[in-house]
């Protein structure tokens, strides 16, 4: 049987080659379908990977506390739902007292505030920049698992010299056009700040919910309070537990402390990194599935295109079918011949589509911050799907060809 099939594949390719343009345009439907699905899934996977990388860098035991209710928790403490439309800033604020409460919760090793200062930093030449100003405390590098490459982070007590700053790597470039502008100064809210250090590059992802730390200017929290008359907006508290293995328990403990403090009047979102990874992945999966679903419709349309062309091909080749039947081809062998033809068509389309999407992903990688990942699973699934498209949509024309009466088919010139 295998020798027939091999001959049939050769014959199918010859038949498809004889109508080169038609075959090419027929394949186009499948190619477009495969390219769009594979690319969308690849981009989604890439973003997920980037988010995961960022979280790994920050440490799996990092706990974030944000105002607002981003997730619903069941009685057991597990996440039961995600409120997609809650942004990070809406739904109340965090206060200094909240920070103190988190610090006092049993098992919390470190807790740092992240405050946003609405101000514009001016570079040496007096040009305004749009860099975000983040106010925090000296424990920040420890909490973020990030070191300062050049210089050092500001100390716990900055009362002696309050106007110091540490820069994200991109911010250093933007302000001073150099990587290590130690000791240089810039203007912020009428004060001259001295650069004390520059952070290592943070891993980032394009869909990050938080500020990109690479762009940020970090100033001491006390300085921010001083400049804003104790009105610094505290948008996030980051905490680390004493025992990394107790992160989940710690999330519950902090959540409980805060809820008790406000008697349930205020909503907070306390998330471990695993959970925020889950939340991000949930959102990403939803988006990816949605877009891939739309893209899959083009694959369906491609399949219908194959069916159309094969139907035309069967009527055109009625005489050939007649000859083959007269020579002793059984219905099954005729069916096989046309199924192989449609499958070769759609499989070739699928493979070309995979090659094109690899190329597109390479271009995306080079020219955009996206780093799409095409997994071997995606390739295998795309191949199998295009194979199935050929079988499914090729079956109607193939059955039509197989059932044709030999005499009727022979008379058909």
């Amino acid at each position, binding site marked *: 049987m295998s020798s*027939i099939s*091999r001959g049939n594949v050769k014959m199918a390719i*010859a*038949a498809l080659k*004889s109508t080169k343009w038609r075959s090419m345009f027929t394949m186009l439907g499948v190619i477009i379908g495969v390219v769009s699905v594979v690319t969308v899934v690849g981009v989604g996977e890439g973003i997920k990977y980037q988010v995961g990388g960022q979280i790994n860098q920050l440490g799996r035991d990092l706990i974030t506390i944000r105002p607002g209710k981003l997730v619903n928790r069941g009685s057991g403490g597990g996440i039961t739902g995600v409120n997609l439309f809650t942004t990070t800033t809406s739904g109340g604020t965090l206060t200094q007292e909240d920070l103190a409460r988190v610090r006092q919760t049993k098992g919390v090793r470190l807790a740092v505030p992240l405050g946003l200062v609405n101000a514009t930093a001016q570079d040496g030449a007096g040009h305004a920049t749009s860099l975000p100003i983040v106010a925090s405390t000296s424990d920040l590098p420890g909490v973020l698992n990030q070191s300062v490459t050049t210089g050092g982070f500001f100390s716990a007590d900055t009362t002696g010299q309050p106007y110091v700053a540490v820069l994200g790597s991109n911010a250093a470039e933007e302000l001073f056009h150099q990587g290590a502008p130690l000791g240089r100064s810039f203007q912020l809210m009428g004060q001259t700040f001295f650069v004390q250090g520059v952070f290592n590059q943070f891993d980032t992802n394009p869909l990050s919910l938080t500020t990109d730390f690479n762009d940020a200017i970090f100033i001491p929290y006390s300085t921010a309070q001083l400049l804003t008359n104790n009105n610094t907006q505290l948008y996030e508290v980051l905490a680390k537990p004493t025992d990394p293995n107790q992160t989940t328990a710690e999330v519950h403990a902090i959540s409980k402390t805060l809820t008790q403090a406000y008697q349930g009047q205020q909503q907070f979102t306390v998330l471990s990194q695993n959970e925020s990874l889950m939340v991000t992945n949930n959102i990403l999966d939803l988006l990816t599935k949605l877009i891939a679903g739309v893209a899959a419709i083009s694959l369906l349309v491609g399949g219908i295109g194959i069916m159309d062309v094969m139907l035309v091909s069967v009527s055109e080749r009625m005489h050939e079918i007649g*000859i083959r*039947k*007269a*020579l002793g081809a059984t*219905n099954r062998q005729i069916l096989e011949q046309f199924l192989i033809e449609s499958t070769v068509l759609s499989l070739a389309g699928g493979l070309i589509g995979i090659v094109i999407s690899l190329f597109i992903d390479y271009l995306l990688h080079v020219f955009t911050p996206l780093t799409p990942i095409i997994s071997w699973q995606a390739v295998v699934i795309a191949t199998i799907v295009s194979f199935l498209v050929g079988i499914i949509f090729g079956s109607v024309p193939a059955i039509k060809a197989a059932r044709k009466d030999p005499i009727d088919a022979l008379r058909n010139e």
Partner: protein
Amino acid sequence: MGVIIELQDVSKLYGFGDATTLALDEVNLSIEQNEFVAIMGPSGCGKSTLMNIIGLLDRPTHGEYKFNGRSAAKLSPDKRAKIRRDTIGFIFQSYNLLPRLTVLENVALPLAYKGMSLTRRLKLASNMLERVGLQDREYYYPRQLSGGQVQCVAIARALVNDPKLIIADEPTGNLDSASSRLVMELLGEIHKTGSGTILFVTHNPELTRYANRVVYMRDGSIMQDETTMFGEVAATALKQMYSIPETTVEDDLEGVSALMKAVPQKAAERTQPSAQKKKKTSKKSTRKTKARKRSTRV
């Protein structure tokens, strides 16, 4: 010798109601193994329908057909296909080779449906092409061959399965007389060397000399069935030959087109040098006329 084909009161009707036409009218025919039968008759007398039924391509409307002792009515389409594949070889008037396959692949095609390995079937096909004298044309496509050669390829294809029965429906219908003779000689030789039964339809009484039995048909019935000697034109056919020539305009046109096909090749060889001569002479003549013109001026 066993009976290979047995038809009992076989009728074939086409269409429904008022449009019904009777292609075969209660035909009884029995053909034994190793016979070489010519079937003659005017167009539309049911010859092709009879061939299709005998070749298991079509089913009779009424009557019983036994092929090789088995009732054809009980055979499933797949079983019929397998019998066609293993025991029947078809030769058509319009050759019916697949244009996209090479000559060799065309001949090997029936073997492919048998499930034979590629190398073996190509070898067998090659042997068969050698037998019909076309081994040097193996990798040609049908469109690159002449009509006679294409029909020889078709014969090779019909023979490749070593069939018990060869059905040739007007094998020489599209061929000039030289190619017709070539094709019929080939069939005659096959009949001599093999043990196959050959059934062929023809309009040409001359060709009945290859057969040992001639069946005459008219309006769906068998009018006469006579046994003849090999190499002799059947008596009835002979009568037909020398009676009032019933040639129509179409027959004349066919003859002309056959001539046209036959002539150019030979004519082209002969005419080419003479054409060059003509050119030369015409040049001379133009010179002469120019000279004359000059002379008239002077």
